[in-house]
Each structure stands twice: as C-alpha cells, then as structure tokens.
C-alpha cells in the first residue's frame, strides 16, 4: 500500500524529554559525516534528526589506518574521533546543519567532566543546535576517565552539562559493561532528557598469518546487524528501569528492525552502519514507517513504544 493511501493518517512526531522530533528516524553520529556529504543521495529534510560526527574540544587526527574491517554481518571501527575540534565545527559544519529541517543533535566527547561542561556551554551559545548527545561511550579513545562505565561519573557528567546549558541532553551509553541499567539510571538521575542505546561493542580482528591485529589501533567497536540483538536487549532492560525516553541504535537496517526497537521500548531510533552500505536506507525506512505503525493499529508512534508483552 502506498503511504498516501493509509486510511488513518499516523502521526510520526515524537518527544524525547524537551526535544521534539518530526519523526523517530535519526542518523547516528559517526555514520553520516556532517550531513553535507549525503545531500546528493538523501532527502535530508525528511529525517527526524541528524547527529553529526562526534566533536572534541581540540582537533584530533584520529587513529592510524586500517581503521575499519568487515566482520560477519558487521564491521569493526577504530576511527578514533578524527575531527577538527569544536570551533572548526561551529564555523564550518554547523551553519549547514542548522539550515536543514531535521533537529541537529550535536555529539560531544570531553576528556574530563570540565571539558564536557565547557563544550556544552559553548554549543549553547551558538544558534542551530537542538540538543546535545554526550558520547561517554566511544571505545576508541584512551586517556581520561571512561565516563560511560561508572554510574557516579556518568551522573556527574550529565548533571554538569545540564547545569551548564539549556539544551536537551541525551547520554549515549556503551554496551561494554556488566550492568548497563545502573548507568542508565545514573544518567537519568543526572538529568538526561533521553538515552541513546547503544554505542559499539568492543571487539577485535586478527590476521593469524601475520600474527597481527588487523586494526591500526588493535581494538575497535563492532557495529552493524551483528549487534542488533544486544542493542534490543539493552533497550528492553533499560526501558523497564527508567522513566525517560530511549533512542535505539544497533544494526538497524530496515523497517522491521525499527519496529522491533520501538516495541521493545525505544521512542526513536538512530540508523548507523546501514548508512555506509545502503546510503538511502533512512528514507526507505521513512517510506515504510506509517504502514508498519498502522499495521499495529497505532495512530502515533507512542502507541507502539514499549508495548512488548511476554507470552
């Protein structure tokens, strides 16, 4: 059925704390460049939100290549937050993002709590930013505290950012912990508007003939369809334990994946690795979304969020 023939129009807008999105389909940080790269292939105006590649206070060259390697139904990356720093982002990338209809959720990564706070204040002072996503979970940077693996430091970082700016705040959490629920609750206590679940799973690939790791940085983050069950499990567990909305991320490649995340407890989703191997996937999913929601009798996205029941 053509979307225009849907008998009862389905509302696609969603609320993530103080942040409203026109629809629940976003593109994940690090998988969509700064959006300008995709303007030729994707009707950017249709997306619910765009998360540009994570920025840091200072420029970072990133890790030595090889930076990615394909694995079964997925890929490992160790890009290492290659970026030109916050000021270059504001001067060169943000004006274009701000000119687009979708919400711009700027992903920031600080080395210290103070740096997170200062970056948040800086982003609050420039026009065109709709929300912040705190990348407390990149597996490819070392030095400094890993804020996403300790509940207390996660809560403090989120609270510090909340105090420093008026923007809605999302915390992007890592799956590489024993108890992600405790960290999700800590982010909620810190004042997060929503949680992004999840970043990549720490992994490694080996070239046994040369007895060497394949990635230049040895370890990398696993993404793609291979990690979807892990991400859905975490969304399901966290949805039961917090009252703030969730964005599901992990191996989403088609409309069925999106619906699985929504039913499991996500209010919105971010498409990541699929942008690499199917660059128009986001708009294809948007084409299919109204019918998929209508199929469950929903008149809005919230009607299906977290509606999963046990047998």
């Amino acid at each position, binding site marked *: 059925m053509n979307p225009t023939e849907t008998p009862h129009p389905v509302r696609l807008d969603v609320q993530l704390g103080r942040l409203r999105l026109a629809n629940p389909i976003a593109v994940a940080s690090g998988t969509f460049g700064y959006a300008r790269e995709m303007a030729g292939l994707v009707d950017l105006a249709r997306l619910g939100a765009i998360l540009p590649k994570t920025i840091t206070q200072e420029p970072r060259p990133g890790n030595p*290549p090889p930076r990615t390697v394909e694995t079964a139904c997925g890929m490992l990356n160790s890009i290492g937050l290659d970026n030109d720093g916050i000021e270059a982002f504001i001067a060169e990338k943000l004006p274009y993002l701000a000119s687009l209809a979708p919400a711009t959720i700027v992903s920031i990564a600080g080395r210290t709590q103070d740096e997170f706070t200062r970056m948040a204040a800086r982003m609050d002072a420039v026009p065109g930013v709709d929300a912040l996503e705190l990348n407390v979970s990149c597996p490819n940077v070392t030095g400094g505290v890993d804020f996403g693996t300790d509940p207390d430091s996660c809560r403090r970082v989120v609270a510090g950012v909340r105090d420093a700016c008026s923007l809605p705040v999302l915390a992007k959490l890592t799956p590489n912990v024993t108890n992600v629920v405790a960290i999700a609750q800590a982010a909620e206590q810190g004042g997060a508007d929503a949680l992004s679940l999840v970043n990549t799973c720490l992994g490694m690939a080996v070239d046994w003939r040369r007895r060497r790791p*394949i990635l230049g940085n040895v370890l990398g983050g696993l993404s793609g369809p291979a990690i979807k069950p892990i991400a859905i499990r975490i969304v399901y567990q966290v949805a039961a334990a917090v009252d703030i909305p969730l964005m599901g991320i992990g191996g989403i490649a088609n409309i069925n994946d999106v619906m699985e995340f929504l039913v499991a407890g996500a209010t919105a989703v971010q498409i990541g690795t699929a942008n690499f191997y199917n660059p128009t996937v986001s708009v294809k999913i948007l084409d299919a979304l109204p019918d998929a929601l209508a199929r469950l009798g929903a008149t809005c996205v919230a009607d299906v969020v977290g509606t999963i029941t046990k047998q």
Partner: protein
Amino acid sequence: MTEHHHCTCTSYADRARQETVAVEENVQVARDTYRVRFACEQIAEGIVPGQFVMMRLAGVNDPLLGRPLAMYNVVPDENGRPQQLEIVYRVVGKMTRRLSVLEPGALLEVWGPLGNGFPPTETEHLVMVAGGIGQTPLLSLAKEYLHRQTYGSPPRQVRQAKKVTLCYGTGGGEYLACVEDFQRAGVEVRISTDDGSAGHRGLVTELIRPVVESSDHPCRIVCCGPEPMMAATAQLAGKLGLHCQVSLERSMACGLGICFSCVAKIRDESGRWDYRRTCVEGPVFEAEDVEFQQHFSQLKQRPKV
C-alpha cells in the same frame, strides 16, 4: 608544477545515485580477473575517468559493506547515450570471489559516481603506469585523451593528447587483462612481468624512463597500482621533473566521506601531513603530496575470512 594542482579539492557525491542493477555479463578476462557489465544509465552518464562506484551483492548481510571499484568503461546504447558500466576486478577476497560466480540476472547494489577522478589536465604525452589490477581506471582516461570517447554530463572536454602510453606490470603474463582494449583505443602498451613470462622481466617502473626519454613530447604521468610501485613511480617522476598523479587504494566502508575509514596521509603546502579521506578528497592525488605507506603490503591483503 603547482599550476597542475587540480585534484585535491573535496568532491562530495552530489551526483551519486544508488541503484539495484542486474548483471548482464560477467566474464573472466585473465587469471583471477573478471569483467562485469550492468545497465545503470544515471551513473554511466555522470561518471568520469578515475571515479569509482561502491558495489555490494544485493540482499545479503555477509559480505556487508560495499567495495570500491573503478569505472573501467561506459558502454553507450545504439543512440550513443551512456547506458552500461563495465568494471574489471581481481578476485582478492570474499566479496570478489562471490561476485566472480554471479550469472546474468543476479542483482547488485551500486552507488556512484564517487571520488574526484583524474582532472582533464592538458597533456601532449600521457604516460600511464599500472601495476597489478591498477590498469582498470586508465582505459577510459586514455580513450578520453585520444578523443575516442567522452565521459561525464555534460561531456568533459579534454585537449587531445598526441600520444598515450601504458606501462603495465603484473606478476606473470597470465594476469595481463584487457591489453587489447588499450591497443584498440590507440594506446602504446609496454609490458613487464615479475617472472618474465611476458614483456620486460622486472619492475614496471623500469619501463618509465625509456618511454619518457624517447618521447618527442612533454610527458605527464598518471599511476595506479600497489603502494610501493606508486611510491617508486612518484619518486622517479620527481627525478625526471614530471608532473605525476596517483590513484590511491584504501579499504573503504562507504565511499561517500561519512565513515572516515579510507584516510591517507596527504601533505599540505607547509609539508605537514593530515589524514584525508581517499573517497571524497581522492582517490586521485598529486604524487608529491602523498606520504606513501611504508608497509602497505601488510595492509593491502584483506583477511581471507
């Protein structure tokens, strides 16, 4: 030779299209080497020599990612309009092995045109240096310079070269692929093989100096092949005082500039290097700007999963 610096600006994929296409022909052309042809008018119309497409097997998650493959040629329809793309590829891993056994009708996902391509710099004698499977982006360039075919929309205008030479080296004669296509296009072809089974026994870079020194015209070099061979060619071009451009190969995930996987070390005017994305700022770079990888052989071979 700074007046030649045309090829280091970022080229976003603004004219790229993603299409599902059906294989029309997929034939072996040399040992481990195949040519696949498929119709995709929009990509065929816009693509220029040195640009590439990303290709993946449709409907499967393993292999997951697309592979960057150079445009070998554009085949026009009976009215002369660009219609089909030809890609020549070497079987090196899981994806190309599966690609090599596809029958006509099998579906591929393709997006492109991608990358900057070779700039149409005026040249009297274009010396093309290829190693391994590196000849594949050069046929269309030769045809363009010899006014046998035009590429791009609107068609790119290139001042006709007086001569085009291909110096082409492979491990052995059984790997030589598509030599007759170059000869038919009017290219002078010189061959080298590691084992001496065809042409000169030795390195392809040893063919360059005789071509240049015996030429009646000012020469310019374009080069594509294994990294050590490109590094050697770049060094020789510097010694001979010749302008040289290289088409780099890097492992890519997207081809679009969004994943930051395919970076190469590229020097700026001050001599400092920065990681640049081969897919949108290349794959063609000024040879003198490239910081070549020292141990590329360890990176080049994909794991045989």
